[in-house]
């Protein structure tokens, strides 16, 4: 580890001390120390007093986040930073790293969590969620808390995990600092408001905290140098290249897209996603205008901003997915008894929403004398789309690569398209720009130790982060063994990045490559079948400390893969089903089983 470092300015004794310490630390501890050092240095440079490593004293705020894609984590960091700026003593934990026995003593707790799949907690929230709902859950009479829930309102169990925490903490005796807020995909604004009200409430409660300490910003390991671009200030990245990855005759259209981050100062780490602010199809906007009788030049107000209606529809509002508030709003406007009955039944409403867009609503329930502002009032903001990054900067420098499946299907006699994927795949021209930001995902990271073997399970576009992993491991010459499971429809046309995988295998970087193609033969074969077939060796890898990564479809693939892994652990590890499940839970807790599923 020390061989390639520049000459050390440390004394021998200092160096030995550092070496001795560093050797004892695990990955997370290393992260922390690195952040600490960055903060320490920042504090020194700003002339402040050097902070101490010891825990902050007194009743501060504890922030816990449960995050799958990194949004909750981003918001937790935002809260932490702003709270510190106000002089509060704040500790921020990934829920998995939070010692549950501390709960009994916590005074003030903020929980930010997303919801996953059918109302399930994200992977790193599973443990705490289970603990709080179990028999060992403590009485929490001392606790004041606040919950921010993230979700997607087009799912039936919208923000369910946040609701669960909020409800349960109250049941256990906790007192709400502020009301829970449920955020939809366009969470920024609502989340900022929640943060502001929480901080107001906390400041009102504890006006004493001074600001004599320079705030320690835990610098992210992933972002060496800060960029001026972020989610709120996206960088306009020129598109450098776009190729279709599927061969002739394929039933799929997956695109490899290369964007330039040159001069953005943006840095990312394999596992991160790229957020992209996309645009609706002008043709769809045209049809919405046509159906409502607007010309498009009407002015509407979005938040405090005045925008032309056509611009609002194309750039700012979501047209391709409906949410319950939109339909509820429309039920009132249209005075349709049918629609009013529908919105009273949540379950039916959610089913009805599925696969319908604004145009469907407009066509089915016309509104006479519609006002342009009324049209846009209850439409969700067009959220940025997140794509797992398919490249490593160690290999591609200031480029960022994406693997985007163009979503197209026909429903109710009309061609429909995924907004983001088709914008990137069709409508954005080469050299045009896309507004982007890095969406870090600390829950999807290569092992700190480059010698650790990894098993990557990434069918379809789930392959993207693994291309990044391999580029990284190749560039850093990491010795850990790598094993990929990939699947798609047809071998000859749909093996994404096949040439590169074969090349890595030939070089010896990729130790093993197992593929499953579901539409080549009479029987549908998927990655989970290959996992079971390779069970014995897979188990040996796990016992050798391998990390497992799963990326791709959340609905069918991830649960099927999970089941297969349980089977492998029980068959080859000779475990009962419960113990096999526990084995995987332990792996999740130890960050050896990480998922990026959507």
């Amino acid at each position, binding site marked *: 580890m020390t061989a390639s470092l520049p000459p050390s300015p440390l004394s021998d004794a200092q160096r030995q001390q550092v070496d001795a310490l560093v050797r004892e630390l695990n990955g997370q501890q290393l992260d922390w120390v690195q952040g600490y050092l960055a903060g320490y240095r920042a504090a020194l440079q700003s002339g402040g007093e050097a902070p101490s490593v010891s825990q902050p004293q007194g009743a501060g705020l504890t922030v816990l986040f449960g995050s799958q894609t990194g949004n909750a984590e981003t918001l937790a960091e935002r809260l932490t930073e702003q709270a510190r700026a106000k002089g509060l003593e704040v500790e921020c934990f990934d829920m998995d790293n939070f010692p549950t026995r501390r709960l009994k003593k916590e005074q003030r707790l903020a929980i930010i969590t997303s919801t996953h799949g059918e109302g399930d907690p994200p992977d790193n929230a599973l443990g705490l969620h289970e603990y709080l709902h179990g028999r060992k859950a403590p009485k929490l009479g001392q606790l004041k808390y606040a919950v921010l829930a993230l979700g997607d309102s087009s799912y039936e169990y919208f923000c369910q995990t946040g609701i669960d925490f909020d409800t349960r903490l109250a049941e256990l005796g906790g007192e709400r600092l502020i009301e829970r807020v449920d955020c939809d995909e366009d969470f920024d604004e609502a989340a900022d408001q929640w943060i502001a009200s929480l901080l107001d409430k906390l400041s009102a409660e504890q006006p004493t905290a001074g600001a004599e300490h320079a705030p320690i910003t835990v610098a992210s390991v992933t972002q060496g140098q800060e960029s001026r671009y972020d989610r709120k200030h996206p960088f306009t990245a020129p598109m450098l290249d776009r*190729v279709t*990855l599927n*061969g002739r005759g394929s039933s799929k259209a997956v695109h490899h897209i290369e964007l330039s981050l040159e001069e953005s100062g943006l840095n990312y780490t394999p596992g991160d996603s790229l957020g992209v602010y996309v645009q609706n199809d002008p043709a769809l906007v045209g049809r919405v205008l046509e159906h409502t009788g607007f010309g498009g030049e009407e002015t509407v107000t979005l938040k405090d901003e005045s925008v032309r209606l056509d611009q609002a529809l194309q750039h700012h509002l979501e047209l391709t997915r409906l949410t319950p508030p939109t339909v509820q709003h429309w039920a009132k406007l249209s005075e349709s008894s049918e629609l009013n009955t529908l919105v009273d039944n949540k379950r039916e409403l959610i089913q009805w929403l599925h696969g319908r867009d604004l145009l469907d609503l407009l066509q089915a329930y016309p509104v006479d004398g519609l006002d342009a502002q009324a049209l846009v009032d209850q439409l969700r903001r067009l959220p940025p789309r997140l794509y797992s990054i398919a490249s490593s900067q160690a290999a591609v420098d200031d480029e960022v690569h994406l693997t985007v499946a163009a979503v197209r299907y026909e429903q109710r006699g009309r061609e429909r398209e995924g907004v983001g994927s088709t914008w990137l795949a069709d409508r954005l021209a080469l050299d045009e720009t896309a507004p982007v930001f890095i969406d870090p995902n600390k829950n999807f990271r290569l092992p700190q130790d480059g010698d650790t073997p990894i098993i990557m399970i990434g069918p379809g576009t789930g392959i993207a982060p693994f291309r990044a992993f391999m580029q990284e491991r190749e560039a850093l010459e990491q010795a850990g063994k790598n094993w990929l499971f990939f699947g798609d429809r047809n071998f000859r046309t749909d093996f994404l990045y*096949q*040439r590169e995988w074969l090349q890595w295998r030939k070089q010896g970087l990729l130790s093993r490559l*197992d*593929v499953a193609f579901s539409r080549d033969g009479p029987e549908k074969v998927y990655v989970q079948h290959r996992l079971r077939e390779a069970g014995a060796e897979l188990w040996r890898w796990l016992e050798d400390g391998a990390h497992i990564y799963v990326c791709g479809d959340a609905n069918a693939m991830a649960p099927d893969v999970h089941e297969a892994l349980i089977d492998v652990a029980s068959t080859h590890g000779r475990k009962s089903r419960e113990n096999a499940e526990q084995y995987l839970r332990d792996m999740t807790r130890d960050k050896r089983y990480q998922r990026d599923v959507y």
Partner: protein
Amino acid sequence: MSDSLPEAEQIKRESRYLRGSLRESLADKATGALREDDTHLSKFHGLYQQDDRDLREERRQQKLEPHFQFMLRLRLPGGMLTPNQWLGLDEVAEHFADGSLRLTTRQTFQFHRVFKENLAPLIQHLDGLGLDSRGACGDVNRNVVTNVNPHLSASHQTVYETAVQISERLKWRSAAYEEVWLNQPEKQTDEEEEPFYSYLYLPRKFKVAIALPPHNDCDVLANDIGLIAIEEKGEIAGYNIAVGGGLGMTYGDRDTYPRLATPVGFVPADRVVDACEAIVAIQRDHGCRTNRAHARFKYTLDDYGLDWFREQFAEVHGQPLEAVRDYTLTDSGDRFGWTEDDEGFHHLTLCIPSGRIRDFEQLKLRTALRTIAKIHSGEFRITCNQNLIIARVNKKERSAIQKLVDHYGLDDGSRSTPLARNAMSCVAFPTCGLAMAESERYLPELTGKIHTLMEEVGIGQEAIQLRVTGCPNGCARPYLGEIALTGKGPGKYNLYLGADTGGNRLNRLYRENIDEPQILAELKPLFERYARERESAKGFGDFLYQSGILSANTGPNDFHEPLIARS
């Protein structure tokens, strides 16, 4: 010594009698290709790894591997099969290949676009039909060819049987074929697996043909061993043996050249299989193994001389060659339409352009032949000119078959121009890895244009032999064409002229690296002269010599040095 051996030679020697890692290669689902080393070994099993070259660049950009696929060739000595086998092969083409059967210039079938996962099922299917692909490619004796239609006389039957016997004798024998393709368990290998070839096999491919004069459908002198049957009193007395034929060459390498086999002697009929084995043994032991471009038998003979060969033969065979007997070879084309033999059977020779049997837009050729196979009780025979004989039709069946021929519009020679029905081409693009220019896909257009030229000067009904290949390696026997084109680059060909129609004289390089307008411009004045002055000559190739346009062959440089340099 072995350090300097070419890769192919090393791989073959270390392959454990052609097993290599073929089983592992086939089990690897992540690629449509075999492991590099196995691509050499697979040839011995009758298959070539290829890729669709039309898609190569596109797939590279798509980050996909090339569109790998295989050409699989049958071992089918004498080119004979039953209607039942025909139906089986038709199914194979449908389920495991690209829906086509291709008749080759070595009297067998090729399947194209066979994907890796379909190879074993295909070969198992062949096995069920009593057919195999063992040694159809690779450094061993290849498919033994002979003049077709043995039922025209008892001698033809003898010649056919001899072809089968030679093929069986010179077949490679290791159990690798059964283990790799037919699911037999792997066994320990030892030298008894290959008593004749041993682990060395041959330095290069080896070809044997038998002609029954005066016909030379099989271009007998283009083979390493050309056997010319000598009939006496209605029986085959024995065979003149010609050695050292072979057409392949490499552009720019003057050490390589096409060569016709030299008649060196005669062996009695009952010793001919042994004689062939002795000759192959000489090549096995003395052929060049350090340079594959010099490894064909023709170069061994040119290196050591024919006297050396005769001595070797006498020693290995145990008996010296007898003196060459008289013979005449007059024609190498097919005789289209119906013929009747002395037993009263009827035979119909059909013209199959480039040997490609497929359901085309206009011509449902594969369906037609499948329908015929269902009612046919005789045999099918493939000619060395890529055509097909529906053989041994009894008198009662003839009209039913003729009805189908009419119904589907099959060509009994009357539906095509003489130029087109005698033309041959190799496969070339998009599947052949060696092709430099189009061949099969280009042939119909080219024959149309050349025929037009011929019509213009009134020789449209002359049967001039045209042969086109995509590279200089000789698959459609280009150097025996009266007119031949060999691919140099996209749209560019070398023009060779002047072979005779009996397969006795090679052509020579006339113009180098020219495109279609230049080709037509070169041919036009020659056709004009031929039309005016041809009375004394029987064929176009002969005419070119008799008129002095070409002068007598001078040697290997004829194939590298164009007669007319760049104009």
